């Protein structure tokens, strides 16, 4: 199956947040605001950016950034959701394979088998996964964007675009085969460069061996609050590559060693007893 991808054109996004709500609508994600008897308790903290953070029921959020350079104010809108990395830190750390790549290249997860360890939450270079987590009991489940491939709510299987892509009024989101999205993104970056945006770039084409959500940016990633060179941390790589095998190896060797000792020592003990 061909790899698919979303292409987000930050130069077209108007931050209407249709995607933010459409994501909740389709995926049945409730709002994340506490209620009180006659209303809700939500507050503005001096920004248009609300809710304040991604959460298990907010898989996609538009980030608002204000920058001023050369006397020109700019208001940048960025999509904040799972990037569906090829070299995905979350997949690397998930102890039991609850997070995995599907045939389209997306990072899916099996919520039923999620143990709630939260390793993915800490490992993600884009700080995307979130878990509902009781402070007291530690009971938790990770949630994040599934690119509308959640079981029972799979839009792609039915030939539909992801909810966020479909709902985008200014057409800032596209969905299709990854190679086509790369081509479209490169073309748009070329156009932006001719318009004078020398820092224009296609973010995600090669990052982490290729993201499945790529951004057309008219400026350097750092300006948009994206890591310039996202990478999977050493400790993250170590988990499945080193710690888990080391655990098995040391554990195995110990058992073997002790078993051998027992055989030897018992033989000797018997000899002595005789």
């Amino acid at each position, binding site marked *: 199956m061909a790899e698919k991808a979303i292409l987000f054109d930050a130069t*077209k996004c108007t931050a209407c*947040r249709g995607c933010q709500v459409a994501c909740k609508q389709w995926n049945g994600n409730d709002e994340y605001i506490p209620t009180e008897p006659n209303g809700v308790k*939500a507050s503005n903290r001096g920004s248009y950016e609300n809710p304040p953070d991604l959460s298990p029921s907010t898989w996609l959020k538009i980030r608002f950034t204000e920058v001023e350079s050369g006397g020109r104010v700019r208001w940048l809108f960025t999509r904040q959701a799972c990037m569906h990395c090829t070299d995905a830190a979350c997949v690397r750390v998930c102890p039991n394979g609850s997070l995995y790549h599907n045939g389209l290249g997306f990072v899916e997860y099996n919520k039923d088998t999620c143990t709630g360890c939260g390793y993915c939450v800490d490992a993600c270079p884009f700080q995307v996964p979130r878990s509902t987590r009781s402070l007291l009991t530690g009971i938790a489940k990770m949630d994040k964007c599934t690119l509308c491939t959640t079981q029972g709510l799979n839009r792609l299987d039915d030939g539909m675009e992801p909810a966020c892509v479909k709902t985008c009024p200014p057409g800032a989101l596209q969905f299709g085969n990854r190679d086509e999205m790369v081509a479209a993104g490169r073309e748009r970056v070329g156009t932006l460069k001719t318009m004078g945006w020398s820092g224009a770039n296609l973010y995600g084409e090669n990052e982490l061996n290729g993201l499945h959500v790529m951004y057309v940016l008219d400026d350097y990633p750092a300006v948009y609050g994206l890591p310039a060179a996202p990478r999977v941390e050493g400790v993250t790589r170590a988990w499945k590559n080193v710690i888990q095998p080391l655990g098995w190896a040391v554990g195995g060797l110990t058992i073997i060693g002790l078993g051998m000792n027992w055989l030897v020592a018992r033989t000797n003990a018997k000899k002595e007893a005789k």
Partner: protein
Amino acid sequence: MTNHWNDIANADVIMAIGSNPAENHPAAFGHITAAKDKGARLISVDPRFTRTSARADIYCPLRSGTDIAFVNGMIKYVMDDINANPRNYNMVYITEYTNAPYLINPGYKGPGELNGLFSGYDPGKKSYDKATWQYQLDDKGIPKKDKTLKDPDCVFQVMKKHYARYTPEAVSRITGCPVDTFLLAIQTFAASGATGKAGTILYAMGTTQHTYGTQNVRSYAILQLLLGNIGIAGGGINAMRGESNVQGSTDHCLLYHILPGYLGVTQNTDTTLAKYLERLTPTTKDPNSANWWQNYPKYIVSLLKAWYGNAATKDNDFAFHFLPKIQAGQNYSHIALFEAMDAGVIKGLMVWGQNPAVGGPDANLERRAMGRLDWMVVADIWHTETANFWHRPGVDPATIKTEVFLLPAVVSYEKEGSVTNSGRWMQWRWKGANPPAQARDDLWMQDQITRRLKALYAAEGGPGAEIIGSLVWNYGDEHPDVHAVAREINGYDLATGKLMGSFANLKADGTTSSGNWLYCASYTEDGNMAARRDTTPDMFNVGLYPRWGWSWPLNRRIIYNRASVDLDGQPWDKEHPVIKWNPAKGESGGWDGDVPDGGWPPINVNPQTTRWPFIMKAEGHARLFGSGLVDGPLTEHYEPWEAPVPNAMSGQQNNPVIKVWRPEEQGTPDKYPIVCSTYRVCEHWQGGQMTRNMPWVIEAQPEPFVEMSEELAAEKGIANGERVIVESARGRIEVVAVVTMRFKPFQMNGRRVHQVGIPWHWGYTGLSTGPSANELTPHVGDANTMIPEYKAFLVDVKKV
């Protein structure tokens, strides 16, 4: 909208002024993006840097309330450039389709000569005598013209003189927009003046909500006419309207001054139908002017036949006197209505899905006035601030004697009917879900109330009982048949009982009926036109979708489209033709493309039978100079009722003809030095009664805030996210400060003027509550329309 949403994609340059489509008309932005993808430039003119500005190629800041100065400066630039580089403009359009060559009464004097006033001002009456604003007529009674545009009395020269005062420097001094930014904007926009190029202006409430809001619109129209941008694909002046059916409700004239189809309201001096028609039917001596409004008698008689049926006969002036007559000269608009309520004149109020306790100006006053009512009926789907005014914070319900009924209505997709969008597309909606068990649609409520009233008057009688008794009201016994209503609006040939196919066939003799002539042809013998869902593109593929829904008038998608062609009927823009004369069509040629604004041949094809393209004007030409408005034939800068600076253009501070009810509520800049504007955000809707009960959008925009510059925040010691008090002469509210570099103080005449802004969606009812920005706004309105001045008033801001 002269054009429609999809048509924006045809534009070469788009100016969003007094509007913020990215936030308030997000769907429009798809078409803006489509235009931009083809190379179009977007100019955002706004006091604050909005989400639209974020996507604009050029952002022009301007102090709230200075649109006229800004656009007048643009007009001056264009007029100068027309002289210098006439080839860059469509001179045929200007001389043949507009009234630029018409000669004006030599007695006319402009504000340059009269210190901010036009000739004919009567300070006692605070109104103009328009005698000197009229055309010079020849001996046949036809206006005189000078197509060389050289005559000093011709409109073009009068305008040159008028607009000469609006130099880029003057514009910058008034608006606070830097000269180079202003020039870049007008150079970019003026490029659409070239033949075959299109520029569109997208405006909204940022334009209209001023004491000179109508003149703001006029200034856009003048600019667009000079650039030849009216009638063409990708052009026009497009009011982006804010409610799903505000266009339809305006067309059906739920407004005091008009009757369905924009027919003037009857007044006490209209002692007969003839007198009414004499007052309102325009006349012309020009044989080539279609003067479409000469059909006035057909429309009003057909309306009376729809309402009073057999009781409307030729003998009784078609029941003309059943129509209520307003007192000539008296204003009954929203502000006047609440003043009358406050004065105890109005005793009963019906409210259908509106929320004036949040949306009305000077909301504290309007809430207080409601307490003087004997009764109030509110039909809505939620609890609203209006319905709950009697126990609003700080009020003892026991002191309010108003009886209140709150009737549960249904939402749009729980009933059937049509709505008309901003682009005049009438679209049918079907019932797709069930409402809560006891909720009822408004049609049912209206039917129930009217039938009960008819029964009461039949049983008990009463003054004017015969009016109510004669009212035709047969929509079924149980639920009123919405299709029957739609057919009544369309109208019938009363002789045959067949549905009318076009308003061109309506008659003034009582043999036809039509509840609204503009909607005639929307529901014909061929069926319900609004329900069509055929996406077949138009002949020239310019996005008209002629078989999708229906568009008034007569399914015309771009009005004044006969200005989109040259004198031979060939499109100015070969790539985006709207209509095109086809000599091979029919017996003597005909039009291809959109439904033309009248089927007459082009000027050069048949100079005798042709009609000038602007058929709704008596002279058949678009009015650069127009005597229709009460506050001047051309656009002149005045300051808002509350302004931080004196008028730099003249000694006339405010629009001289506005009516002020409460002079004592005017704030002064010494006490309230900061300009404030109210507006909406993408995530909420209007008075908020819809969206403030929907958690998904509440969490996206949870509470009201005041946006301010970093400079103002530093002066006041306010940190981002802190709670602050915003106070005007009318009220004070406490909201969260959003300190942002998107706001900048304006530098004008060496002075620094701060501006802040507050979204107005909130109130004290619903899931998400917060103070209403309208507690601050003034009870003063536009000279022509009385639309309140929400966009520019004075406040002070301080830390809590």
